[in-house]
């Protein structure tokens, strides 16, 4: 019988809930592993899970400097979508989407993936054409996409201002019906439990302080809980990539760490049923199962590790929200927070072997990391196990920038804050 089910819930309830086991063990680190994954966030945990599940590699440790899932997997706006323009991205994120669609079963953990759709609003004819280009690109790769008329949009989200008198009237939108939201923390916990039950050691409060080397080759790490050796060391540390690479003697990367704020309103009865983006600024919103409106906007726009946002961005995001929903002026913002985004020079991620022998690198998620969690771990595990990329992550090399093989979905060039 599955560890978690309606039946087990009932059985445990009758027993006063005294018999539940820890979701993951709290082991001490062993002296050596086949693979060390640095970073106990969504990507690190899913990497460990798929190493064990898909490749039978279970002698694995995930090292987390703080508490598990303390990075962006627990600080995002929970949207899951694969509505990209460029085929390299679409293929990868669609693979992720397919993993999402079966994730709760796979993990025996309800990650609450709800395919409530993601609608990108268009406000000019040119933008509508851009979305058509994107939607058609998706359709030619077998991904779902539809154009929606204003009337259909109004029916879907009655609270939207679709009047022609809006400053940026809504002319239509691009809908991906299979997109949606998931319960972000549950993703980290579900992967952690799944990996743990397959023998992976998840070690919290264990900060990597340096690398063990044999010449160029990485042979392990030094940590606040002692030295740990490993045949392969994989980095999945998102916003801290620059810091950890520096420990390996690599001072420069095609990455900047930026802060992105997100916001949640007080709990409300259902009013927005889909994920929605505004086309004349940078704004996205959905409503959580608890009823909070979860929304965000642009990066603050400068390098930061502070996980603290600035006030002008708050004002900007709220203004854009009310441009779409003038009825929500009296709704109240309950909480804001900042996440670290590892912004690359083209807005697309890096999943690759190297750059040093014995090292594997997963980073550059900009602010698209949450939806990538399953495919990122899946592809990274493949890359670690086979020492070569899967075709889904083959384009996401580190040297693509230098070779001009950039994957720039927004066409902004090497200005990370604009991706």
């Amino acid at each position, binding site marked *: 019988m599955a560890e978690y089910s309606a039946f087990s819930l009932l059985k445990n309830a009758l027993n006063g809930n005294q018999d539940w086991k820890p979701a993951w063990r709290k082991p001490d680190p062993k002296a050596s592993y086949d693979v060390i994954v640095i970073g106990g966030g969504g990507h690190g945990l899913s990497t460990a899970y798929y190493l064990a599940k898909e490749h039978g590699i279970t002698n694995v440790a995930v090292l987390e400097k703080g508490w598990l899932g303390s990075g962006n997997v627990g600080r995002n706006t929970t949207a899951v979508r694969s509505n990209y323009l460029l085929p390299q991205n679409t293929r990868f994120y669609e693979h992720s989407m397919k993993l999402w669609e079966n994730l709760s079963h796979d993990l025996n953990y*309800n990650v609450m993936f709800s395919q409530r759709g993601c609608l990108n609003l268009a406000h000019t004819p*040119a933008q509508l054409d851009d979305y058509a280009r994107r939607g058609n690109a998706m359709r030619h790769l077998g991904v779902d996409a539809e154009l929606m008329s204003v009337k259909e949009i109004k029916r879907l989200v009655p609270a939207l201002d679709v009047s022609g008198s809006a400053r940026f009237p809504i002319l239509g939108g691009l809908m991906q019906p299979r997109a949606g939201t998931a319960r972000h923390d549950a993703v980290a916990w579900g992967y952690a439990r799944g990996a743990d039950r397959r023998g992976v050691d998840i070690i919290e409060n264990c900060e990597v302080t340096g690398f063990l080397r044999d010449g160029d080759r990485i042979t392990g790490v030094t940590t606040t809980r002692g030295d740990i050796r490993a045949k392969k060391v994989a980095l999945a540390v998102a916003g801290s990539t620059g810091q950890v690479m520096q420990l390996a003697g690599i001072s420069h990367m095609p990455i900047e760490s930026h802060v992105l704020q997100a916001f949640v309103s007080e709990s409300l*009865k259902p009013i927005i049923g889909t994920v929605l983006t505004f086309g004349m600024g940078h704004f996205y919103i959905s409503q959580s199962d608890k009823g909070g409106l979860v929304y965000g906007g642009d990066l603050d726009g400068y390098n930061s590790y502070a996980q603290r946002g600035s006030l002008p961005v708050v004002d900007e995001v709220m203004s854009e929200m009310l441009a779409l929903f003038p009825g929500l002026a009296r709704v109240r913002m*309950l909480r804001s927070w900042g996440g670290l985004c590892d912004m690359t020079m083209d807005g697309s991620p890096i999943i690759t072997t190297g750059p040093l022998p014995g090292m594997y690198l997963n980073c550059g998620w900009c602010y698209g990391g949450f939806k990538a969690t399953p495919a990122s771990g899946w592809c990274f595990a493949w890359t670690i196990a086979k020492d070569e990329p899967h075709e889904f992550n083959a384009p996401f090399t580190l040297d693509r920038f230098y070779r*001009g093989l950039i994957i720039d979905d927004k066409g902004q060039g090497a200005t990370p804050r604009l991706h």
Partner: protein
Amino acid sequence: MSPRRTETGGRIDRLRTIRFTFDGARYTGHAGDTLASALLANGVTLFGRSFKYHRPRGLLAAGVEEPNALVTVLRGEVREPNIPATMVEIYDGLVAVSQNRSPSLAWDIGALNQLGGKLLSAGFYYKTFMGPVIGPLKGTRFWMFCEHFIRRAAGLGRAGTAPDTSRYERMNAFCDVLVVGSGPAGLMAAKAAADQGARVILAELEAKFGGSANWSGETIDGASAADWAARIVGQLEGNDNVRLLPRTTVWGYYDGNTLAALERVTDHKEVPAKGEPRQRYWAIRAKTVVLATGSFERPLVFPGNDRPGVMLAHAAERYANEYGVLPGERIALFTNNDSAYRSAVTLKKAGAAVVAIVDVRSDVSNEMSRLASQAEAELLAGHAVVATEGGKAQTGLNVRRFELMSGALSGDERSIHADCLLMSGGWSPTIHLASQAGARAIWNPARQAFLPPQPTQRWIGAGAFTGSFSTAEAIAEGRAAGIQAAGGSASSAPLPVVEAVPGEPDPAPVFEIKAKGKSFVDFQHDVTAEDVRLAHREGFVSVEHLKRYTTLGMATDQGKNSNVPGLAIMAEALGKPIPEVGTTRFRPPYTAVSIGSLAAERFGDLKPDRLTPMHDWHIDNGATMFAAGLWYRPMIYGLAGETVEQAYVREAAATRESAGIVDVSTLGKIAVQGPDAAEFLDRVYTNMFSTLTVGKARYGLMLREDGLAFDDGTTWRLGEQDFLMTTTTANAGKVMQHLEYFLDVIWPELKVTVTSVTDEWAGAAIGGPKARAILAACVKGTAVDNAALPFMGIVHGEIAGVPVMICRLSFSGEMAFEVYSGAGYGMRVWEALIEAGKPFGLVAYGLEALGTMRIEKGHVTGAEIDGRTTARDLHLDWMLSKKKPFIGSAMMDREGLIAPDRLELVGLIALDNRALDGGGHIVEELDAENPHDSIGHITACCYSPALGKYIALALVKGGKGRHGTRAFVSDPLRNRFGPVEIVSNHFYDPDGSRMHG
């Protein structure tokens, strides 16, 4: 007389009666009442329903931290959900309704959730609802089916969709000292700083200044504390240096000592006065901040602690002393510290019977015993409450002997008849703003509280905020902080004298009484002590895991009541001291902030409108306008009954037949001037500009540093050192920043200045076979013939008495001219041109016709220069000079940028003679059912009147090699499929004979 209103006392105006409704029932209260105090005075005990179990709930608190009594305030159709009744000041005609209940507050079907009991423990969602692995409900379907009902059951209040017609305002303020909180500490700080001559802002989140002075019942300098506070406020009011902000919550502490505050200007009024906004958002830049934000009393965790009638002790004091309302007739108290004894005395004085004081400590000081006698209360030292009785109102409670060190209960249960139980679990300083400012709080074991960290920004703490809970300390610290903040030196003048009941500040370290029954830690979210222990059992032991797994601290009070008790229970389960479990970092806002206030003036007015000088003419002449960035531009000048296509086809055809005129004022215009201007342009553009002669223009292309195409436009050499650069409308700002960056950072040695002159010039492009004749008819001071004005030549002249600059260049492919004049005279010149054109059949055309003619010519715009294409992709490699380096030249030949399968610009002709759509894709093999293998996409399309065909520009893999071949448009989104021929992008007049004339 209301059943619970005291005979006398309180800071309300008993002569003013106010009428309001709650859940449709009519009530009265007095000026100065909150909705909570007024309803309490009317004998209401049931205020709300909890989030998960829909348990009946009464008032827990009297201030912002209230978690239970949330209401929706209605103003007509406009709804304001989730407001604590404790923060709603009543006004005549106030309409408030309860939330999260169906059909009514008293009878709520959702209360059936309680039957789920232990099944609905923390984290149960994660363990079920996955549904079947196969069959029609596999994948996410079963969860989404369940989620539908869960979502409807969840949520608190209902938001409205009717647009809020209120106005919101933003103020930027600067001061030497911002004092947050106006209790005795804050008042003293403000007074002391003001006396030093500092510019002071004093912000108080409540309607009345004074904080605890309004209800402590203490005496300061011989007057009641409330009168003393009023006197200080009076003195501050008379001071020009001081700005007093009541009803103003400082909710955010941002970088650079910038604080964000929300002033509720008219929420307490039936009708705002003329010009008054609903709320005002203050961004305050303070040299120094005094944090005098006080503290919160903590609930105790014991079975039945959520029953309506169980309240925080100080809240009852407040209701009695500030509002003249008794929360019960027979009151019991339950405490782990001395402060509840003062509450007991206060309530006794106000007329309640205080039946018992239950104190977990067996050693109670003589002074406290005396206070208990004074309250005529039975003192049950070494006891604890183990249960409460009653349904929607409390009827009694049960107590047992309690051993402080072990937490063990012993002896028989004794039942006490009481309709109200006041609890005090110690006090937590309100350190939210200090935490937001950037540092971690420090646990103080004596106070059993997190105290503020060392400042990381420029703030000074005072009073209960620092853990100094007595009024005398608050006054001393407040004055010292005010003086220090204002840069003064310490004062030895005597301090105001406080007479207060005695009491030690340190509580016994008891947070929970472990007895049978549900003991609530987070009231709103129904998180029980058992839930915390379940989280521990399952390994969710870090404070963040606890929070996220159980939702403890995530309710609208954001843990103001629950954080410390929850942490203490987890610490006990772990066998660790509290600080090792940690505390969460507080993040903005301190209390929830309306989204309207944050948008402020931008609510309803998101972005500025940019209008060209000829805007009104376009409107008057039937133009359909549309947004292009911030600009508004004419799309078509449609005639009655015309479709968009008919209109642009008519406009384009007329232009090619006779002449057309279009407003090009939105083009970016940058003056590039100085001795090194030509050199600079050689570096910026891919082609040469130093060879351009004065009085001529040249088309130029810019790349980004990474070698991709950036922007194009013409640049005119007006003098040896004077160029006028034009950019695309969309990229004007970006190009300007690009130029400035290179001049300022990379090549500071170049003597060049760049100035944005987009808004200084109005531009009209006039083209077509008759264009020259029209110009000749209205231009004075210059000839416009081929000799005087050859292709790409520039002349100066006059139209309608206005100096103009005319450049002969063409985007439409016709013989065409751009006429620039000072923006203020744009309309005059435009009208003169229109007038002069009348005999020649001149038409005004919009962007659709402009687009049509540029597609026919195969010119590129932003749809093709989309940040992903190179000069070669767009067949602009002829513009890449080999004689000089330019920005992007070193990077443009990298392998990925010259790969043979890149998308290249081509022309398309629809072979089925049907319209094409922008964003349609191109395939070699048509498969409408299962579209695949796109080789490119349409960037722009139109019906070409010149060709009589539907045509398009497209970016297609290996495009040039496909000229003359057939492919298909594949547009599943719009169900448009059909054959096309791939051709050169130069559809029309490829050798340019028409524009060269």
